[in-house]
């Protein structure tokens, strides 16, 4: 099992750092899955707290100048590592002006991801900072636990409002309540509601648009048969939603959510080089 990668371009490095920062805000510990072409950050609801789960996928070619990976075996050319993304975030934080960043899987005293940052210096040789991030190697028999979650059979799919606006609304609501109700319909309307003994607050968004989903047999979504006005709602932990929104440092190209009435909310945030899916279960 081997892994080495290198980033030389500063823009790629910054972009990668931002993604790691987002992941770090969502999960204390997560799985990093490495394949020949892609990296995945996975949070399975089994190991997470609060039952939320996450699937983040990026193409290595968009970030790394060099990327070599040898999985556990030829037929299973993948590596699954458990790590604390905050460590990776910290290691990359002070690499803003780096000449190069190398990441390597090592096993000196224990398996580690060694992040070596080469920094410019006034002297003849560069300054090297190494961060040894301890990781856990996930054995192959457990890989099934981390499969890509399927898109749930949702009741409503709707584009999200401008994330910055949504974030400031949710932040204010968080001061009043621990739970928030998200409801939306197929007419592009969404409401965010909180209710306590003393006060209830609802923020209404409209004209958001509903993404077209092709159903399995290839025809357009069966929205015609459904009541366009009826709202599907789910009550979720407001902190999870806030973490998701705070972690977004760049506006996604597309942001939408799928609501499964009273069961869960499935968020999909798409950027050019990375896609992030976040599942928040509904509170009973």
């Amino acid at each position, binding site marked *: 099992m081997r892994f080495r990668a290198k980033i030389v371009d500063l823009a790629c490095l910054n972009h990668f750092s931002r993604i790691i920062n987002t992941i770090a805000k969502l999960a204390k510990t997560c799985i990093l899955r490495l394949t020949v072409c892609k990296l995945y950050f996975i949070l399975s609801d089994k190991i997470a707290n609060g039952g939320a789960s996450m699937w983040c996928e990026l193409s290595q070619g968009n970030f790394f100048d060099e990327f070599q990976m040898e999985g556990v075996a030829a037929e299973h050319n993948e590596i699954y590592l458990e790590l604390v993304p905050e460590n990776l975030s910290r290691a990359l934080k002070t690499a803003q002006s780096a000449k190069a960043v190398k990441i390597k899987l090592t096993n000196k005293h224990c398996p580690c991801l060694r992040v070596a940052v080469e920094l410019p210096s006034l002297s003849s040789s560069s300054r090297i900072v*190494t961060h*040894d991030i301890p990781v856990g190697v996930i054995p192959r028999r457990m890989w099934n636990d981390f499969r890509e979650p399927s898109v749930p059979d949702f009741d409503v799919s709707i584009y999200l409002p401008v994330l910055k606006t949504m974030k400031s609304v949710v932040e204010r609501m968080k001061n009043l309540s621990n739970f928030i109700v998200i409801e939306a319909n197929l007419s592009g309307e969404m409401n965010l509601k909180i209710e306590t003994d003393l006060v209830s607050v609802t923020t209404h968004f409209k004209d958001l648009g509903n993404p077209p989903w092709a159903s399995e047999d290839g025809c357009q979504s069966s929205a015609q048969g459904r009541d366009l006005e009826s709202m599907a709602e789910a009550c979720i932990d407001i902190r999870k939603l806030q973490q998701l929104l705070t972690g977004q440092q760049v506006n996604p190209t597309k942001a939408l959510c799928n609501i499964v009435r009273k069961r869960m909310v499935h968020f999909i945030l798409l950027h050019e080089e990375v896609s992030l899916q976040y599942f928040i279960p509904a509170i009973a």
Partner: protein
Amino acid sequence: LSRIGDELYLEPTERGLSLRAVNSSRSAFASFLFAPLFFQLYEPGSAGPDTEVFRCKVHMKSFLGIFRSLPSLEKSVGKCLILLKPRASRLVLQLHCKYGVTKTHNLAFQECEQLQAVFDTQRCASRLCAPARVLAEAVVHFPPTLAEVTLGTGPGGKISLRNYVEDEAEPSKTMVTELWLAEDEFQSVAVAPGSNITFCLKEFRGLLSFAEASNLPLTIHFDEPGRPVIFTLDDTVLEVHLVLATLSDLESTSQSPSTNGVSHLPAQSDDFADDLESYMVAMETSEVGSEGPPSPTFPLRTPRSAESKLEEEEEEEEEGAVPGTPPHKKFRSLFFGSVMTPGRPGQATTQEVLAEDSDGE
């Protein structure tokens, strides 16, 4: 100085005005000596053969509060007068500002004994000198909450800084960050090969920001683990010393198998440092010979006046542990009990007890 202790000690001498501070666990001490030339006017007051040098201490916060907003002070204050009024027990700070405004602050002070850590940079085997900027850039890679850092020498003359991982922490769960600086980043390097020391980062960061702001190179004097590390800044009118205790533990070297062969004291029993109060003994500075290199201690007062009570010392011990330098179990106090043979705490019988433990056993 406020990063180190809550009290500011002032000592006007012929050589200049000395400002000092010490932390509650006695593992960090700093002194700033402003030469007479630093001031427009400097009158230390007469210290005849009968009168001792006058020393006092004030609350750090009160003193700092007077200089709260530097930018606005720079714009409005023309002169600052510092006056010690012993009979009124007041330290007067008078700011002469624009438009004829004079702000006078009267701070209450307490007389105190001399605060002095005994250390000798000449006795340090290793010395490094670097521009403050280089060290500041090095330290930035470590998280602000990191308590201790290990400075070491490595192959090729490189100098390394590594975060110190406590024994209690699981090595397989803790991230280790290490930075290597080439010899030519320093202005001068004279180090014993394979040496390394571990010290608290917090107070060091404080000195580093001062050094950066004043654009002065920083010199680090160190010796074996357990002996204090001394950071100095020198200028024509200012002499700064920061003395920090270092870890004298085996574990500080076990992290880097490459630096082997460092001689150091065996691990201290954990009881030792926690039990500081039982070891309130003012020591002579003389070495005890074969019992291992002692940490420097400071005599709280001259041995002659063994009778007088140690009021200042008692007050200090009653303060709760300040959450500054974490009183790490294995850090030795700079000032006490070093002459104890490690592993046998409590055997102070060979030492002259100059001050009884005020709390009693």
